[in-house]
C-alpha cells in the first residue's frame, strides 16, 4: 500500500481506505479475485459483496456504507448495454449519479461513490479500475461524512435494521426518468 504513509488516519485506517464494492453476479467473475472473507486478493482494503444484479443496489445502501465507516463505495455491473437483465446497469448508473449530487450537497466528496462496468472476463481491467478508485479515495482527507452525529458507526448488526439513512427516499424520486438512458 504505497499510500499508507501520507494518509491521514481514518475510521479504518491502517491498510488504506476502507472500500465496499457491490459486484453483480453476471459481471466480473470473482473466482480468483476474492478471498473467502470477501476482500480482494490484490487489494485487502476492498470488500466485495455479491448481488444478483447491479440494479439491485439501493442507493441508500451506498450511503449506509459511507455513514458506517467506509471511505468509498462502488457498484460494478456489466458494460453498459450488455446487462444480463437488460437495464440494471443503466439504472444503477443513473442512481449513482443522483446519489452523488445529493451527497455533494451534504459536503461529501462525490468521488467517493463509483460505478464501474466490466464484463465477465475483464477481471484484470476491473482490478486496475478498483485500484485507481482506491488510490483516489486514499487522497481524500478524513471520513466520508463530517462527524456531526456521535458515532453511528458503533451500531452493530443487531441494531442495523431498516431505519438507516434519513434520506433513503428522496434520493430516488427521479429514478424512472433515467430508464431510457442508453
Amino acid at each position, binding site marked *: 500500500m504505497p499510500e499508507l504513509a501520507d494518509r491521514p488516519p481514518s*475510521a*479504518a485506517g491502517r491498510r488504506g481506505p*476502507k472500500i*465496499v464494492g457491490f459486484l453483480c*453476479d453476471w459481471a466480473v467473475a470473482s473466482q480468483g479475485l476474492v478471498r473467502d*472473507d*470477501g*476482500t480482494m486478493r490484490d487489494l485487502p482494503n476492498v*470488500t466485495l*459483496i*455479491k*448481488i*444478483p*444484479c447491479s*440494479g*439491485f*443496489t*439501493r*442507493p441508500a*445502501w451506498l450511503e*449506509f*456504507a459511507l455513514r*458506517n*465507516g*467506509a471511505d468509498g463505495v462502488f457498484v460494478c455491473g456489466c*458494460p*453498459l*448495454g*450488455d446487462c*444480463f*437483465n*437488460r*437495464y*440494471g446497469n443503466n*439504472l*444503477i448508473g443513473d*442512481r449513482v449519479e443522483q446519489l452523488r449530487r445529493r451527497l455533494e450537497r451534504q459536503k461529501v466528496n462525490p468521488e467517493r461513490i463509483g460505478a464501474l*462496468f466490466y*464484463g*465477465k*472476463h*475483464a477481471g484484470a481491467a476491473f482490478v486496475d479500475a478498483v485500484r485507481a478508485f482506491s488510490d483516489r479515495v486514499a487522497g481524500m482527507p478524513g471520513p466520508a461524512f463530517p462527524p456531526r452525529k456521535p458515532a453511528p*458507526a458503533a*451500531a*452493530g*448488526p443487531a441494531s*442495523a*435494521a*431498516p431505519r438507516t439513512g434519513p434520506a*433513503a*427516499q*428522496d*434520493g*430516488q*424520486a427521479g*429514478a*424512472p426518468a433515467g*430508464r*431510457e438512458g*442508453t
Partner: protein
Amino acid sequence: MYKRLLAGLLAATLRVDTLVARVYPDDFNPLYYTGGLANLFLTVLVLSGIFLFLYYTPSFDQAYTSVQFLTLDVPYGQIIRGIHRYSADGFMIVVLLHLFRNWFTERFRFSRDEPWISGMMLLTLTGFIGVTGYMLVWDQRSEALVAMTANAAAQVPLVGGWLRHALFGGTGLTDLLLPRLLFLHIGPAVGLYVFLWWHYTRIRHPKVWPPAVWTLFALGFVVLLTGLIPVTSQAPAVVSQRPQTLAIDWLFLTPYWAMRFLPPLVLIALAVVLIGYGLYIPYQLPETRSELGLKDSGVAQVIDANCTGCELCYYDCPYNAIVMVPSPNPGVTKAAQARKLRAVILESRCVECGICVGACPFEALELPRLLQKDIHEKVLSACQS
C-alpha cells in the same frame, strides 16, 4: 460438453465485444442493438416493399416485365429494388447475430423462454418470406425455386399433395400461382408484426431502434451497395423449358443449393429437427440459480404495508413481472396511506434480478433470501474488519 461449449462461446462473444469497444463506445456497440437493427431493416423492407407493390403485376405474362419496368425505367426504381433486396439480407444477418448472441450469452435462462420461442417463429417466417420474395420476380431462378419447392412439398408423407396445393394453388403452373405467392410474401410479413408483439410482451422498454450512428451506417451501406452492385433479374422464365442454373443467395436459398446433394425429404426432416432443437434450447439447461453457483435469492416479494403504489418498480422491472392493481385498503406506513394502487409480482415471470428492490424508494420490496437486513450486515462487517 454443451455447457463447456457454451462457456467458450460466451468468452468469445465477450472478446468480440471488447474488440468492438476499441472503436465504438459501449452505448454504440452494434452487437448490443441487433434486435433494434433488425427492426430498422424490417421498417426499410416494409417501406420499400410498398413502393415495389405499387408497380408489381402478379400474372405470368406481366410479372417479369413489370419488375423490369420498375428497375430500368422508373427513376431510382433500381435503387429502391436494391434496397429491398439488400435490406432483406441485412435483416437476416442481424437476426442471426441476435439469435447467436442471445444464445451464447445465455439470455434464454429462467423465465425468458417466451422471447426465445417467438424469436424462433420469427426466424422461420423470415426464411419463408425471403424465398417467396425471390419467386415473385418470375425469372428463371423463380421458376426453378417454384419447381423445387413444389417437388419437395409433394414428397412430404400424408399431407404432401395438400401442402403443394396450399402453397401453389394446384399442380403445375396455374394462374393462381403468382397472386398466391404475392400473398404468401406479404401476409407472413404482416405476421412478423404479430410475433413481434409476442416477442415484446414480456420485455419492458425493448430496444427497438439502434443508435443514430448505426441507423445511418446500415442505411448508407445498403444504399451504397445498391449503387455498386445493382440488382437485376435473370432471363425471364420460360415455362416450356427447365431452368439450368440457380444463382444462390446464401442467406435465404441455401436449402435449395443443398438439394443438389440431398433428397428433399431429408432436407425437410433436417429443417424440422433444426427448428425443433431451436425451440428446445431454453429448456436444455433448466438450471436453478444454486446449480449455477449463484445465490438463490428467491422471487421478489412486495411488503404490502409499505407499498405506496408509486409504480417505480413497475417501470423498472425489465421483464414486465410487476403489475399495478387497485388497492382495496391503504397501506400501514404514513407514505402508503393515500395509495390507490399497489404492486403485485407475477412470480412466474420474475427472474430474481432484484432490480425492483433497487427501484423501490419505500423499502416495500425484498428478495426473500437476500434482505436489506442481510446487506446491512454485510456492509457493517466489511466496514469493521
